[in-house]
């Protein structure tokens, strides 16, 4: 394999990892606040189709991305109202969000299937992008950079800021956080909105940059893989980046093998790789030498009602 090809594979790995990373980072923050939102797939799909629709209608990429973010956050707000105000079961409500989001995205997308849009513009990083060979890695669209910046920003927020400390306290010990005087439900709601916005952004990356088009169910389980990445990451942002790049790599490897025809394997078997890889990784980190040393946030999935 030539160096040039290696760089190409790395480049595609970065683009394949970006939607996973964006969605996983959002969910990571939600889970650190003690809420499990299984609706990532639905929010990603709705973000993907809303962004695509606006891009198709206006041709304005910034507006398209903002719309996708807003759409994801809007769906998340419904989820937040149900699980926080009405204390509904988080697993069931998350599933409802995925079912609803999948249906809603198909409905919005009805008139947009098969329409072409221009992909996101590339923004070369000065100097770095001029390096021969690897310079191509620094000539990507804004969302690829944003995803990486978001990892650092979220890691810093959770570890080193007061807000991050409060958010973690809410996820680890909701009653104590409440008795010190922090508004547990409001913090959780904000976290849920952030998670929805990031899922919407991840969806928009798929429909605006990764494959600039709209197809029903185009996320193909990426929302669920993002959930798995959060577990794999043991709720740590940098590990989430590692997980997203790992799964991005598996996706690219699978596409590369399909395209090259090197191995006499039917394409469907290769397409199974990311899903089987997810199961394998989840199994490895649940037991044995790879067992994660961190446990989930103590309040994950539990409803909270302020004592009166």
């Amino acid at each position: 394999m030539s160096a040039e090809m290696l760089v190409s594979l790395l480049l595609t790995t970065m683009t394949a990892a970006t939607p996973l990373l964006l969605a996983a980072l959002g969910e990571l923050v939600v889970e650190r606040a003690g809420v499990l939102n299984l609706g990532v797939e639905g929010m990603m799909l709705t973000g993907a189709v809303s962004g695509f629709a606006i891009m198709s209608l206006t041709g304005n990429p910034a507006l398209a991305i903002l719309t996708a973010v807003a759409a994801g956050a809007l769906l998340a707000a419904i989820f937040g109202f149900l699980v926080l105000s009405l204390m509904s079961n988080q697993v069931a409500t998350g599933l409802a969000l995925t079912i609803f989001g999948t249906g809603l995205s198909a409905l919005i997308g009805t008139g947009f299937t098969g329409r072409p849009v221009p992909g996101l513009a590339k923004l070369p990083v000065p100097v770095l992008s001029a390096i021969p060979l690897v310079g191509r890695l620094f000539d990507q669209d804004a969302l690829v950079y944003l995803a990486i910046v978001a990892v650092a920003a979220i890691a810093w927020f959770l570890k080193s800021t007061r807000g991050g400390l409060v958010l973690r306290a809410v996820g680890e010990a909701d009653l104590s956080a409440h008795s010190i005087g922090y508004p547990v439900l409001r913090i959780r709601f904000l976290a849920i909105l952030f998670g929805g916005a990031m899922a919407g952004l991840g969806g928009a990356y798929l429909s605006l940059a990764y494959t600039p088009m709209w197809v029903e169910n185009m996320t193909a389980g990426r929302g669920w893989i993002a959930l798995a990445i959060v577990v794999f990451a043991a709720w740590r942002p940098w590990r989430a980046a590692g997980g997203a790049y790992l799964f991005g790599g598996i996706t690219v490897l699978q596409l590369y093998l399909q395209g090259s025809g090197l191995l006499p394997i039917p394409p469907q078997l290769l397409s199974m790789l990311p899903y089987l890889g997810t199961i394998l990784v989840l199994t490895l980190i649940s037991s044995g030498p790879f067992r994660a040393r961190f446990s989930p946030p103590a309040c994950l999935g539990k409803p909270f009602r302020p004592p009166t």
Partner: protein
Amino acid sequence: MRILVEPRRQPSRRLWTLTPILALVLTMAIATALFAALGYDAADSFMAFFVSPLTDLTGLTELAVKGAPLLMIAAGLAMAFRAGVSNIGAEGQLIMGAVAGGGVALAFWEQSGPWILPLMALAGIGGGMAWAAIPAFLRVRFAVSEILTSLMLTYVADLFLNLLVYGPWRDPDGMNFPQSRLFNDDETLGILVDGTRLHTGTLVALVLALAVWVVMTRSLLGFRIRTVGASAAAARYAGFGNDRVIWFTLLASGGLAGLAGLFEVAGPIGQIIPQITPGYGFTAIIVAFLGRLHPLGIVPAALVVALSYIGGENAQVLVGLPKAVTGVVQGLLLFILLASDFLVRYRLRLARRAGAAA
């Protein structure tokens, strides 16, 4: 005046039974508003979606045809959910049941005899069970959450079906279409009403839902399932193994989903094609909750959700609504149902501000 929210000492049993109906009525109202917002005549779309399928024999029998797989799958899922086991991969288990049972049909396509269909059914159950056994094993042995594994396996099952239909199982006389041979007469379910698609599998579905009800209410196993679901600690104290309940509920729900899949290919479809389910495995989750995880509640719930499929097709033909509204209506229904559960656990009371000290 303001509204006070007070927890009930006991969840209201009456509302527990009534809120699904309330959720249904609200869903119909919101869905109709949505149709109107999309620019369609509200009354016409309402009639086409919710009413007209119930007014003729074809519509009613189709309700049973689409309700049967939902009923079977939801009955199994209800057991799993009762035990706190989140099997959300019934869609994949359905596909693998259709693959295993349909594989038997293709293997014996030149044979005839009354033994073929039972053999197909057994293979269908086995296929679904085998697919559900994977998350069961991983959960019991490695403590891996069954939520993500069962869901991931759905994508794998779908690709596997695709591989077979585009590869070895493609009909050699089928002009290269991605579909298998047609099953022969001994490999297809009998029709109950001439001129409709109502097949004997719908009766089996009903019987199996009753069987689940008997297991859940009249057997020690059902008691164990309910105990483990209510409190894993209490169940351990009573000596009920959590692992056995996980295995049983996943295998049972997988087997029922597998049989539902086989009934689809041996019934309305009659061969194996790339798309054998419009998401029954996922929609059955709504059915299970709408039926309050009770085998008897699931029977009407399955018919209600089946109506959303037929209504969607009907509304597309009659008033031109996009077919995708079906998914939106199904999602809305589950959202509203989950929201209405609040009323079961909490009481709303109007109070004057002066007397509102609590």
